[in-house]
């Protein structure tokens, strides 16, 4: 079974130290995620790829306790659905990224978080589809 990313261009792949792929405006310096071709602040088209910091702090969070409507959601539903955390992680001086969180317990605004890649679903070819998530740093470990 191969591991495949949920989409090209969202995070570096394959990579031992994955990073989210954003963009930075050469004119005004704003950082976006995902990368986009034009600037939402100054309308410049001079956006360059910018790899985001893998660490930040939890800015807002909630839990997703029911399966989202499918489509567009393609993840587990029914008995296979497991509630998950959702939040924005603020990457200092860069951007706040909306993300899955690896836990629904013990979440606190301001806590340190780090980027991880996690299994999301199995596709029709039997591949494991991988997405990005953030986990509390103190819940880390070698995984």
């Amino acid at each position, binding site marked *: 079974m191969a591991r495949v990313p*949920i*989409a090209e261009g*969202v995070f570096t792949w394959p990579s031992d130290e994955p990073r989210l792929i*954003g963009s930075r405006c050469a004119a005004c310096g*704003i*950082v*976006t*995620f*995902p990368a986009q071709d034009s600037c*939402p*602040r100054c309308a410049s088209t001079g956006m360059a790829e910018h790899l985001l910091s893998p660490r930040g702090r939890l*800015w*807002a*969070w*909630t*839990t*997703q*306790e*029911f*399966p*989202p*409507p499918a*489509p*567009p*959601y*393609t*993840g587990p539903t029914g008995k296979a659905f497991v509630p998950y955390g*959702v*939040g*924005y992680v*603020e990457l200092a*001086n*860069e*951007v*706040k*990224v*909306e993300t*899955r969180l690896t836990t*629904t317990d013990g979440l606190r*605004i301001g806590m340190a978080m780090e980027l991880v890649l996690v299994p*999301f679903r199995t596709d029709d070819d039997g591949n494991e589809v991988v*997405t990005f998530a953030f986990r509390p740093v103190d819940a880390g470990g070698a995984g």
Partner: protein
Amino acid sequence: MDVAIVGVGLHPFGRFADRTGIDMGAVAIRRALADAGVAWRDIQFAFAGSYEIDNPDAVVAFLGLTGIPFTNVYNGCATAASVLALAADTIRLGEHELGLAVGMDKHLPGAFSSDPRLYACPPWYGELGHFLTPKFFGMKINKYMHDHGISAKTLARVAAKNYRNGARNPNAFRRKPLSEEEILGSRMLSYPLTQYMFCSPDEGAAAVVVCRADRAHRYTDKPIYLRASVVRTRRLGAFEVHSPWLPIEETAGPTVDASRAAFEKAGVGPEDVEVIQLQDTDAGAEVIHLAENGFCGDGEQEALVAGGELEIGGRLPVNTDGGLIANGEPIGASGLRQVHEVVLQLRGQAGDRQVPGDPKVSYTQLYGAPGVAGVSILSA
């Protein structure tokens, strides 16, 4: 050119298996025309709002094909406020004297969903389950509670108030009072918001007849004046739904911008308002919007709610007809349902839920995806 409202009409909100959205629109329009004492052939222009119905102006099939300019509008959760603002602006232009604003919708049950690409979001954002509104409202109120000391009990009290008000409203979808315990104990959907703290998409229609203010007395001896009708969209840095990212810089949301502009246009302040309708997509949204619209400072809601000040008979009566929590949200009609309610309140015709003391100034606010707000200020 000032604008008056001389007629309002509503098709009840709820679930109606035996009729289409356009059927409901026709009922609301007939009721508004009857309220104004005018005929469909007297209407010189119309705007219609809907999310589900591509061409709500098809309602002319049931009313008469009179050839008037009739424009269909969809503008997210502020659709009905946009319809009213456009109708009012058409009167202000001076070209027409008498027109109609109508909203109608018929949604399936469950959270709204769509193709994320239609909202400038990448497909993977939807595949992951992020393209969903309840979790946004969960994050927004969870952060607000953290920053400003609001408790979950306050959310339950707000929802209980709206169910209680809905029980007094024969047109409401949910007419059964629910206790704070039942609300807190219902299924957790998006922490800290439980099932009974959320409104539901449903069905319904509402219509308003607008008129040049200097001609209003031809139609009614109690015209209600539309002092401001303002729509605003998000600025960079506002915390809005369907945002895969937010910038580091933070700014106020579109409700704050629309509210300030509306108060300035109307020449009144929050202290003058006696009846309030706020977007309560969930109980937390009502709490946040109370401050965003200038009716209190951040965090003061905790004491205001505990003291019963948002009740009918309180100092700041909010969502006297039960709001979205008791009425549901047919997007195209929701804001005109708010206007219908405050017009009844300002006329003294709100029956069991009439705000005492002969209110003279009222306020309505819509807010939602994709980061759009509409505010109207009306006076007797």
